[in-house]
């Protein structure tokens, strides 16, 4: 069961990172094509700005769960040797993860309010008429997933350290 769960987590992480990678490649290609067309043919890709904005959100939020799940956020580890010597490192790491995960649910709830507002107001992007609530909804979901992953990491670190290492 545990093995199946890890494979599932691995699969979801790879899928999200694949989405982020494709998004970034599309962002690069779009910017290049837009600039080239504007410079050479004097004809820009009109929805380029709104697509860039959506692709950026995709890149950032599809990679965020992996970033937090692997504990790769930028930290200051100056006191790590002291924490290790006092045998507090695992306890400290677990609590920090729990804190970060819980904190993420604050804006996630508020983001959901913004999603509902955008849907009620019928906000859409200028050229492609993409509903804004879909983008905001995806951001809110990604924040919730990241929060859940970070809390899970904290719980594993505190109570099941052998699983956390995997």
């Amino acid at each position, binding site marked *: 069961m545990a093995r199946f769960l890890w494979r599932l987590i691995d699969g979801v992480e790879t899928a999200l990172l694949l989405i982020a990678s494709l998004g970034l490649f599309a962002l*690069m290609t779009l*910017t290049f094509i*837009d600039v080239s067309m504007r410079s050479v043919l004097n004809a820009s890709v009109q929805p380029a700005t709104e697509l860039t904005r959506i692709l*950026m*959100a995709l890149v950032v939020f599809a990679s965020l769960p992996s*970033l937090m799940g692997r504990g*790769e*956020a*930028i930290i200051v580890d100056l*006191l790590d040797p002291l924490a290790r010597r006092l045998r507090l490192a695992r306890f400290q790491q677990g609590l920090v993860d729990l804190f970060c995960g819980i904190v993420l649910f604050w804006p996630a709830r508020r983001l959901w309010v913004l999603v509902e507002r955008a849907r009620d107001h019928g906000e859409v992007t200028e050229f492609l008429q993409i509903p804004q609530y879909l983008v905001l909804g995806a951001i809110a979901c990604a924040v919730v997933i990241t929060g859940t992953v970070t809390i899970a990491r904290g719980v594993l670190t505190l109570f099941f350290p052998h699983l956390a290492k995997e």
Partner: protein
Amino acid sequence: MVSALVGLACVLVMVFLRVPIAFAMGFVGVLGVAHQRGGLLETSSYVPAITLAARQIADTTQDYGLSVIPLFILMGLFISKGGLSRELYNLGNVFLGHLRGGLALATVVACGGFSAICGSSLATVATMSRVAIPEMRRFGYDDRLSSASVASAGTLGALIPPSVVLVIYGILTETSIGKLFIAGIVPGVIGILFYMGAVRWVVLVNPEAGPPGERHGWSERGRALLSVWAVLLLFFIIIGGLYGAFDFPPLNLTFSPTEVAGIGAAGAFLIAFGRGRLSLRDLFEVLRDSARTSAGLFMILIGAALFSAFVNLAGLPEALVGLVTGYDLPPLVVIAIMAVIYLLLGCVFESLSLLLLTVPIFFPVVVALGFDPVWFGIFVVVVTEIGMLTPPIGMNVFVLQASMGDISAATVFRGVTPFWVADLIRLTLIILVPGVVLILL
């Protein structure tokens, strides 16, 4: 002002307790805004604060201008994968390798060249260390000199354009990124010259540290120069595009930083692909790493924006401006005090976090004193990059150690001292002669 100082202290405590910097700044920022909006015990005051956080998350990640960040990171990683570092190193080697300490000089020049197409000092160190250090070892160079030359010259990655740190400073302070890039060129070249001076000093004191290598003929030098055409072309397009070098009929091209980043990333991709250095797996790895690094940076940007909102609401910048003008301190003394604060905090924080934490507080003071925002951007990058070499955090040193595996951090820190002194001289020059920064503008 007191609440902002308490908030700053809370951020420092949380950061030392290993809370990610983005979360520490964001959390304190939200609490601070709530405090300013009605008090921490008032439930209703949290609504605007958390709404601000939610808006900041949604807006920052969809800000068109910020697309330069993932694109420049992507460009740097493509360049690293493309193997251009070896050609750059070879170019330095054929011209300088025969001198005493020549391979270390070549390393400094190659790092400077690599910085011109890569926007990060950490990426420069990670890439150049694998190319330069084995070669210097082959010629019997002292590990202290070889590792310190890479770790120090790697800091140029954040200064010589394109630079991700300068982009972030530009966005944070609404300063022209194009001007910041142009302003980084002369201090970057001065950095190369001063680091070369540091290498010469080391081999003057201890000639055994850097024995001379082989002398190369002019035909070989010509071939080496031709082999770096891709680097030169990319740098020319980036800087030329920003500087308006192609703004003549029939081209009439001037690029914004976002456009340059897109062209640079696509160009770097084509170079790496054209050189056969990019398998499908490599491509995925580069894209994945760029996306993850960008996500980390965006988190810090969001955290910094929230902390900045709190600091501004609490009136800390105005209070500092009042303090400085009240005591009638000469502007240079204020800058010297800031430099000391940066050098001390640089021992603890990596450069980007330090920049994001301090610029919202210091920038209004500096502007009120009449300093040029572009000059301050270069000053901040130079002074924070010194921290990348300073124990105990010295990120460049640890990246080099991780990249090489068999060089201790203590060895690098010992070797870095002359380069650190060179950095301090350069910083003093930038403070006393602002013209070296602004000359090309």
